[in-house]
């Protein structure tokens, strides 16, 4: 077994190439704000510029096929790209692009050739930013209970309703959206996915006031929004995966969202916090306290387990191994251990981790943001309870056959 991304000569050359590329391409003006809500439009554009530069080489969506603008790269190369972006405080993609990140692999499975040729290259080349639109005021965990409708009218679908916890600051070009296409149809057989251009008339985007955005780390998400659709006419050709077949399509989307793809986890906050506790000021360090040291070691061990679950999922997904409960297991772990690490930080360092005051906040307020983010992160991509439900089904605890994971390729 080999857990490390041990560079072969070829991989080492690739890492060198990536590093050199990032050195000359990443703008020195890019700032790493503790709270992504503080990201300015200019900062967002700098990240999009980087995305386009990555996309030119197939590095923005490196696992996607080349013919659709991806890189067709093996797992190790994707790991190298992710590593190198993480090293400089960014993510892949370097901006919030959930609709692309989860929509693109779904379109690859369910879209027609025409869909793939039309939608995937702009996503993979970084020319567009895409949001995902799933939750509604009355439908969170119960996604199949959505009410937002798309009714066929000639060559168009007419969309009406409200979506919540959507996207980011600074808008999007497309919305990858699940809607009811047959309001009288049977549950699970009445849904469809539409790729909606955001410049169509009748779309209103209103920012929400939330504790934090939750779980998007280095991608710099910013605010979440409520999106209202008022008789929005979407070309019928933008429906992907077949009318009323949306629940099946959703299983692929949700497999990605529930952690099936596996990301190499970013543990920057853990290392920064440990270093903070070692810092000696006026002859005193937080780690001088034996109780604090015990908690710090526990925090480190917890983060090691989380990292290893992510590593395993990364390997499973990028080598096309059979999966079952592992995606949800990782999501559950990431959410709960994030919450637990936040609490441990409070126990170890007290109010120091709770302030973003310019004078007193450590690490430019990133720890304070982690406190809010770790609580907010409990819900996006399905709650902890839903993750447990999925695990139970996949493990076949209820006596039924083990539910199979959705296809990602």
């Amino acid at each position, binding site marked *: 077994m080999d857990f490390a991304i041990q560079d072969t000569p070829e991989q080492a050359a690739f890492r060198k190439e990536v590093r050199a590329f990032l050195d000359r391409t990443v703008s020195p003006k890019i700032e790493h704000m503790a709270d992504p809500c503080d990201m300015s439009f200019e900062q967002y554009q700098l990240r999009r510029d980087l995305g386009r530069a990555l996309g030119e080489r197939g590095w923005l969506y490196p696992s996607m096929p080349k013919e659709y603008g991806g890189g067709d790269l093996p797992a190790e190369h994707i790991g190298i790209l992710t590593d190198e972006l993480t090293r400089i405080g960014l993510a892949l993609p370097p901006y919030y692009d959930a609709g692309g990140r989860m929509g693109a692999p779904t379109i690859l499975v369910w879209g027609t050739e025409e869909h793939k040729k039309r939608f995937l290259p702009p996503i993979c080349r970084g020319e567009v930013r895409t949001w995902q639109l799933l939750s509604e005021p009355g439908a969170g965990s119960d996604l199949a209970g959505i009410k937002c409708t798309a009714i066929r009218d000639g060559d168009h679908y007419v969309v009406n309703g409200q979506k919540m916890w959507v996207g980011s600051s600074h808008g999007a070009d497309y919305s990858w959206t699940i809607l009811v296409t047959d309001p009288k149809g049977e549950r699970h057989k009445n849904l469809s996915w539409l790729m909606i251009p955001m410049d169509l008339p009748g779309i209103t985007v209103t920012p929400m006031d939330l504790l934090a955005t939750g779980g998007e780390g280095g991608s710099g998400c910013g605010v979440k929004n409520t999106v209202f659709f008022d008789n929005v006419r979407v070309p019928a050709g933008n429906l992907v995966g077949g009318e009323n077949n949306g629940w099946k399509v959703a299983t692929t989307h949700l497999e990605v969202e529930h952690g099936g793809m596996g990301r190499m986890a970013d543990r920057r906050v853990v290392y920064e916090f440990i270093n903070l506790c070692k810092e000696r000021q006026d002859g005193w360090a937080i780690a001088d306290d034996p109780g604090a040291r015990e908690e710090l*070691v526990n925090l480190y061990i917890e983060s*090691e387990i989380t990292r290893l679950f992510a590593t395993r999922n990364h390997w499973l997904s990028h080598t096309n191994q059979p999966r079952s409960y592992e995606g949800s297991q990782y999501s559950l772990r990431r959410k709960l251990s994030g919450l637990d690490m936040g609490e441990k930080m409070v126990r170890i360092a007290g109010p120091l981790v709770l302030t973003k005051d310019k004078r007193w906040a450590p690490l430019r307020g990133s720890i304070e943001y982690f406190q809010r983010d770790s609580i907010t992160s409990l819900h996006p991509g399905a709650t902890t309870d839903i993750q447990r439900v999925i695990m*139970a089904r996949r493990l076949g605890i209820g006596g039924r056959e083990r539910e199979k994971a959705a296809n990602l390729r």
Partner: protein
Amino acid sequence: MDLSLNDTQQLIQDSARDFVRGSCGRDVLLKLDRDPSLVMSTLWKPMSELGWPGMAIPEEYGGTGNSLTDVAVLFEELGCGPVPGPLLSSAVLCARILMEAGSDALKKAWLPRIASGERVFALALTETQYGWTADNVRATAKRAGSDYTLSGTKVFVHDAHFATDLLVVAKVEGGKGISVLRVDAKAAGVSIRALDGFVTSVCEVLLENVKVAAADVIADGWPAAERAMLAVTPVLCAYQVGSCKTVFDLSLNYARERTQFGQIIGRFSRVQDHLIHLVNHLDAARWTTYEALSKLDAGVDAVASCHVAKSVAGESHMHACDYAHEVHAGIGVSREYGLTLHTKLSRSLYHCLGAPRLHRKKLESVLGLVTA
């Protein structure tokens, strides 16, 4: 990155699985648990014939020089039983200590005989002031001419009742540090007694004026022995992972078959939660363990990973059994059901090669939280 088993490991897994299924059914394991003296007479010969005692020993000393991950794959399968016996103590732990610390003469004399299964070694380290560190060692070897006389009390020594030889950790007169001595288990002055109770394979070892030849003394061998112990720790963890796996399978099957209130209990979300906790512990132990092993085999710094592995596997093994008992309720504590073999083991191995607390303490230094 490749987290799959290679062809060799696949073969090891298959042959170990066949052995556990074929020779170590539940009734056999229960019988061996009631009468541990049967372990050597029934299991040791077939295990030796399969070449298992030689796996962790280099070819030049009569073994097959397998990687630690290879060895761990075997132990995971044995843990699934759980198959008892001194294989880990003798052929992995003591063999590794001899390799790391022993003189050429000691290695040549004993490693081939350990590899063939002819001799069985156990490590006698822990004493009344219990702990897996050198600080707790009071046993002392005094000079007697050119040889030594060893005295001391060792307790909670794993697998000593199976042993033909002991590696005893002691202070040696004239030595600077802590030393390791090879002692014949049948030598005059050695008495070994297995301890009864909710405990698997731990013994009292009394040493009263035991004569030890100078050639059998590894002077100041403790640092090398400690390195060996740390490297072997993830193999023990793999054994615990195997045990967790069986405990999970037992619990899953039980939840899918046991009917109460007119339905199988696996339909109840509270029962499902126990199984989810259990599989989370199993996987945490599994992946921390195998990462440590892969680092050891790759020759990169594995110290932190070894400490993490035992911290996690030690706790996970106990928790896994606890959740299994919540699922099983009454039938789980019926000895003939078999779950309690694992539960007893999870308690007995918690401290073996250092309790999680000791490994967490060591991590404080590794992470630089305390300056040495």
